């Protein structure tokens, strides 16, 4: 080793020592932050980064300047086994395999038994959730359900001015996901959005399921100027006066409309549940 190498090595050693010293100091700093200051996430993160960085620097310097660099050459061995090894393996395997193939009947019985117990082991999976049955076809809305807002207050004919919109639920079921309904007042007169819905929009009020028919996000943005409902998740857009038919985005179906009526006290009530399943599509929705 000549003198130059000596100087070089001393320099590197100093650098590494500084790196490790920085780690030690930063770790002490972490102790101060944690115990004296009672924690402070910017300082914690920074000091931890400095402490770890000091270590990392030291190790990389060691690897780069103080350790043998090679290059070393390692020969590859052949991966596939030799034909003798394969033959010996096959012969050893035959011991059991031959025994098995002479007892085909037992093997078949074992296969059936294994299948049966495997199937039985799957039964408990059914406990994970209830039978879907007709749950996706119903909501909590019933004939005569009182329309209430998110605070549970009843909604009357005077609650919204024309152009207003409000998220409503059936009384007693506030925040139930599949029953959320967006109530919009389009005018002062009764509104018919589609043939057959002559009585559904009393005094300009229309109610649509707020669950998007695409992927189920709440269709929360009402663009009053264009009378459109926009889903903020995937931008499906529904035209409110036309029965909430989709006019843009990935949704393929209209938002189901809730049949509404006004009772003797001037409060809004549902005429019935939705007449079709709300929310995104599924295999047997049409049945």
């Amino acid at each position, binding site marked *: 080793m000549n003198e130059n190498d000596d100087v070089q090595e001393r320099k590197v050693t100093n650098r590494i020592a500084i790196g490790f010293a920085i780690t030690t100091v930063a770790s002490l700093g972490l102790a101060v932050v944690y115990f004296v200051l009672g924690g402070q996430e910017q300082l914690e993160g920074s000091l931890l980064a400095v402490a770890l960085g000091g270590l990392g620097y030291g190790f990389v310097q060691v*690897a780069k300047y103080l350790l043998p660099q090679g290059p070393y*050459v390692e020969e590859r061995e052949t991966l596939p086994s030799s034909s003798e090894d394969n033959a010996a393996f096959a012969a050893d395997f035959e011991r059991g395999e031959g025994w098995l193939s002479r007892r085909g009947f037992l093997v078949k019985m074992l296969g059936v038994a294994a299948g049966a117990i495997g199937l039985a082991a799957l039964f408990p999976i059914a406990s994970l959730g209830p039978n879907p049955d007709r749950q996706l076809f119903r909501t909590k809305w019933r004939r005569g359900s009182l329309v209430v807002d998110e605070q549970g207050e009843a909604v009357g004919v005077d609650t919204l001015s024309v152009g207003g919109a409000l998220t409503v639920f059936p009384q007693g079921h506030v925040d139930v996901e599949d029953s959320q309904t967006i109530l919009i007042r389009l005018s002062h007169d009764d509104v018919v959005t589609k043939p057959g819905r002559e009585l559904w929009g009393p005094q300009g009020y229309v109610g649509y399921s707020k669950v998007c028919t695409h992927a189920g996000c709440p269709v929360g943005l009402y663009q009053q100027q264009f009378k459109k409902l926009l889903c903020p998740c995937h931008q499906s857009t529904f035209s409110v006066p036309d029965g909430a038919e989709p006019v843009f985005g*990935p949704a393929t179906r209209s938002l189901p409309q809730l049949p509404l009526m006004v009772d003797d006290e001037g409060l809004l009530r549902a005429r019935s549940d939705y007449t079709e399943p709300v929310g995104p599509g599924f295999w047997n929705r049409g049945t």
Partner: protein
Amino acid sequence: MIVKRLVRWFDQRLGAARFVRTALNKVFPDHWSFMLGELALYCFVILILTGVYLTFFFTPGTKEVVYHGSYAPLRGVSMSQAYESVLRISFDVRAGLVMRQIHHWAALIFVGAIIAHLMRIFFTGAFRRPRELNWMIGVTLLVLAIANGFTGYSLPDDQLSGTGLRIAYSVVISVPVVGVWTAFLIFGGEFPGNEVLTRFFVIHILIVPVAIAVLLGAHLAILVRQKHTQFQGRARKERNVVGARLWPTFTAKTIGLFFFVFAACAALGGLAQINPVWIWGPFQPAAVSAGSQPDWYVGWLEGSLRLFPAWEIRAFGHEIPNPFFSGVLLPGITFMLLYAWPFLEGRFTKENREEHHLLDRPRDRPVRTAIGVAALAFYAVLFVAGGNDVLASRFSVSVNLITNILRVALFVIPTVAGVMTYRLCKELAARSPTPGEPEPPPGGELVVRTEEGGYVDVEEPARTP
């Protein structure tokens, strides 16, 4: 002295000296792109370390409680136990927030490192025989990493994560025949279900991490057995590996890398805010806001849901709803193609008849490189589409316009990118010979006609390196 006695004690019981010596001498070829996999490995270690700490405080409960902690704006608000415990970690547990943020950042980098590693393997042909098995394990690790990212993202039960779960539920029920049943089994009933948080918690902290650890072990064991690939170069042959030894040089280098990765995650976790759930608020089923974006590695699926046109199949009273195509079929085909790639390529190139330990330069494989770049461009457009509403408000144009442009771009940009890549590869390959291959013999290649009308051979001018 003590070390010597310790080593002897173990060797007398295990007889491991020879095996360990072979391991210590294992040779690692040196190239910067070989550290991408290590990067992913170390992110996983950081995730375990910070994740274990977080489990000591997190409650995966859906029971409603009223918040009384130290974050004033939410005091008195009713929320799930899960959300409340995340607020506690963030504001009332000393060092809790920095741990949570390091965990989140490490998760983002983890998936990024895996994808970068996958790209390195793909573009250099490192997946060819005999490494098809490890390629498939690697793709599985990517799927698991994304799954664990999504389940972890769902746990805080904030407004954003609830929206993500809502969309995931809708995608599951869109699966023909078994979709609704499957969704009810996962969520414990109709959305939101009472069980999903506790189940995702078990999946997130036990099932998937254990699966990742086991497959990671297999991934590394196969790597050791098959030895590393290496780029072509002097003395580097199909039959050898040239580089630094595991002990001590590579060990020191890789420990250094681990500390640097951890340092970067710590700096990000301390200084760069990530997922401030206290701003999103607790999950309410009837609320959502524009600008709801998932973590980056789910962005391509979000974009797929947004770009897919309003098509679905309805017949005989049954239907295959729209999200099935964009949310199930597209990722399904994506990962099927990834799994199948080594075999697909082998079928066309017939290269899988022998082993390959020397790596390709991407330019020498223009078709593969072009396909890879086109695929990346495709997913990049989908990723951008996942933020179409953000783009629309940034550039003050209608989201409909952006969406329609991106629908076209989804097919145009990958095509252009693929063709350009192909041309570029050809060009680059023509300019530089493959390293390690002998230079073309000088002379006899270039024929020049002289002024007098005769022909002479001239030697090629010397190449400047």
